[in-house]
């Protein structure tokens, strides 16, 4: 039965990866826009709403309300991918913006003085420097996501949490299945934590 629960690790991991990727893409875009003073009011409202309402509410909204609005049916996986991405994008946007604020203005000027195009400046000069300072915070966000994906169990997805609940119901015992679930989540977050420490240790100071 433990094997059955452990198999949920892959499911949880899939949600985490997709959400982190989606959140990073949306979050980077928002941070970039906000840094350049574009649509600041709108982005602030978005971030405030996403951080100020429960993820469970957002998830159920996406799964039960979005399909009727769009007139399409969406799978649990797509609903999870959208809700988790959109939610984490708010946090990631603020992390990346802090990183951008940390990059010395002189770096923009040096790029401009050398005639480097805007695209190359952001891609090769500014973002890499911002990323170095915010890497630990980004990994932190990934750790949060691992744990928050447990909410997908409420929609019936057989992730670690759901599997533990099913086993508990079948065997009339909670201790062992839930401990197995906790250990599975901890395995994932522990690995991420170690990545963060490894990165911090090997990071050269700027």
């Amino acid at each position, binding site marked *: 039965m433990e094997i059955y629960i452990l198999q949920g690790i892959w499911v949880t991991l899939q949600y985490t990866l997709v959400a982190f990727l989606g959140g990073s893409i949306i979050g980077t875009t928002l941070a970039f826009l906000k840094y350049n003073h574009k649509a600041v009011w709108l982005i602030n409202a978005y971030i405030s709403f996403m951080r100020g309402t429960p993820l469970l509410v957002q998830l159920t909204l996406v799964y039960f309300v979005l399909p009727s609005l769009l007139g399409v049916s969406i799978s649990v996986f797509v609903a999870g991918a959208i809700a988790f991405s959109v939610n984490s994008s708010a946090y990631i946007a603020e992390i990346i913006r802090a990183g951008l604020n940390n990059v010395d203005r002189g770096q923009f000027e*040096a790029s*401009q*003085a*050398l*005639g*480097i*195009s805007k695209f190359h400046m952001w891609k090769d000069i500014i973002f*890499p*420097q911002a990323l170095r300072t915010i890497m630990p915070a980004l990994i932190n966000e990934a750790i949060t996501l691992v744990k928050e994906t447990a909410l997908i169990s409420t929609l019936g997805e057989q992730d670690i949490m759901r599997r533990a609940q099913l086993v508990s119901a079948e065997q009339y015992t909670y201790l062992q299945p839930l401990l197995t679930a906790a250990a599975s989540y901890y395995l994932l977050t522990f690995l991420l934590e170690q990545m963060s420490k490894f990165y911090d240790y090997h990071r050269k100071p700027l």
Partner: protein
Amino acid sequence: MITIENLCKKFDNQIILHNIHLEIKQSEVVGLIGSSGSGKTTLLRCIHGLETNEGLIQRRGRTGFIFQQFHLFPHMNVLDNIIYAPIKTLKQSKAKAIATAQALLVRMGLWEKHLCTPQQLSGGQKQRVAIIRALAMDPSILLLDEPTSALDPMLVQEVITLVHELKNEGLTIIIASHDHVFLKQVATRIIFLENGKLLST
């Protein structure tokens, strides 16, 4: 090499540069002197095109700018700092950019540092890398902002020697500084700037 007519620059209605007229010939080394806040840096930035301004600035060839704080790219090693812009902006081949960078690094005695990051360099070395980074873009005009402010006296002599060498190679050089002694040794002409106005040439 450079013609400036009626140059004016304002920041929020505050006049930084007022009606600047200036003619600079090839191989001149122009020392721009003035107290802090007189507009030296702003004038250099206008010449390089880093600032919008009113008036006319004509320059023949590319300009290279060396910042007071150097602004090297801290996440790149010395060689990558130098070859990045020639490859991306001038579309040079990597081999050509490296060959140019190597020649300049060897000349300035910094080749053994080409894999170091900027934070592993001393102030004087950083400055030389900044100069090489500008020279790698093959400029005909070089603009230096307070080149001696971060250097101890021993190194100032090196800068003087280098400026003389570059002048003899045909570069036109403008140096903003408040160091009279340094400018007298290095410049062929000294210009005084006070409250955004040129006093004499």
